[in-house]
């Protein structure tokens, strides 16, 4: 069985992302509002999401459910996690240079 690799380049409209994540539009719009996900396009009808948004949305859902966060808190947690990952990669690279 083969799947597809999610890519930044593949774009989805609001209704696609709601269908794929099984979420109502209001929830996805709240995620946009709080910065959990970013969106291209000025008007809701023209909003385009990257496929990777799905991963962030799912993580945000899990964090909200398991940790009692609200969307703003989940957005903060996701941003901090991304920063930590970047720093870890950087540390790994620096340690390698030192050896």
């Amino acid at each position, binding site marked *: *069985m*083969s*799947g*597809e*690799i*999610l890519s930044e380049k593949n774009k989805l409209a609001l209704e696609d992302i*709601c*269908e*794929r*994540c*099984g*979420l*109502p539009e209001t*929830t996805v719009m709240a995620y946009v509002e709080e910065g959990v996900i970013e969106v291209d396009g000025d008007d809701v009808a023209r909003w385009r999401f990257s496929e*990777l948004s*799905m*991963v962030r949305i*799912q*993580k945000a*859902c*899990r*964090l909200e*459910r*398991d*940790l*009692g966060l609200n969307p703003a808190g989940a957005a903060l*947690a996701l941003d901090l*996690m991304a920063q930590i990952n970047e720093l870890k*990669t950087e540390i*790994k*690279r620096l340690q*390698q*240079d030192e*050896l």
Partner: protein
Amino acid sequence: MEYKDYYEILGVEKTATQDEIKRAYRKLARKYHPDLNKEEGAEDKFKEGGEANEVLSDPEKRAAYDQLGTSYRPGQDFQPPPDWDAGYEFSGRDGDGAHEFSDFFESLFGREFQQQRGGSSRTQFHAKGQDHHAKVLIDLEDALHGAKRTIGLKLPELTEGGHLAIRERNLEVTIPKGVREGQHIRLKGQGAPGMGSGGAGDLFLEIAIRPHPVYSVQGSDLYLDLPVTPWEAARGAKVKAPTPGGVVDLNIPNGSQQGRKLRLKGRGLPGKTPGDLYVTLKIALPPADSAVAKKLYEQMAKDLDFNPREKLMRAAGQGEKARAK
């Protein structure tokens, strides 16, 4: 089946208030949540904490659990006493159900407590099945060449009686050539089954690459430390170097210093834009453990006018005084 001490798992006293239990659970969940903590074992701790919370946060279940008594030790073999739960009515509340519970839990409270995953607002609006998420640890070789991997999944399923059962199934998944660490593979329709006319959810596989003894991976690039001799680095040389595609003859430019990086274009992970292989030179000093080696070092010390600390001492304002002899 092993007895579990839910109080010990959450790190609270048997007399803890409901508020204390909630705080302890939140703290544990923040620490071990698999989205936040990628370390091995974190997910198990998180699940264990979720199970402890499921029991201790519910006054009915907690009371029933408490009356099992204090004579059990964690890990001890356990069988529930007959009629142990007589007089307790579990409300079967819609738990958040994100956890797979242990046999110990199921022997006490049954599986009907594990309601449909996700819960809350998700399923009310759409009948599409829940998406599932799993991590797959692959070898670098799998990313280089592509591979087929069998992935074992535990899926909750509704039985005819309306109870939830855990079904295990194996999926053979193609790992595409050139996949990068942290990428997600979506397997359409391989998540939880939908309700009514709704389609099944999707399965998302997050790729992690196991550390490799020779190469380290960053995105699509590979890194390799290559030992060279001082004379190869100083005079330049052609040396053999390993690459994922096979041994290559690598030109070491003359005058190379420790840590110099050489790029082998396109020799990283394959893809539309293949990654590169970076070779970092590590100068290895021959030990002065033989008469010949000692003599050569002595000769160098005598004949070479080389002071590696010159610049450093000048920068420290102590240039002339500390000149090496």
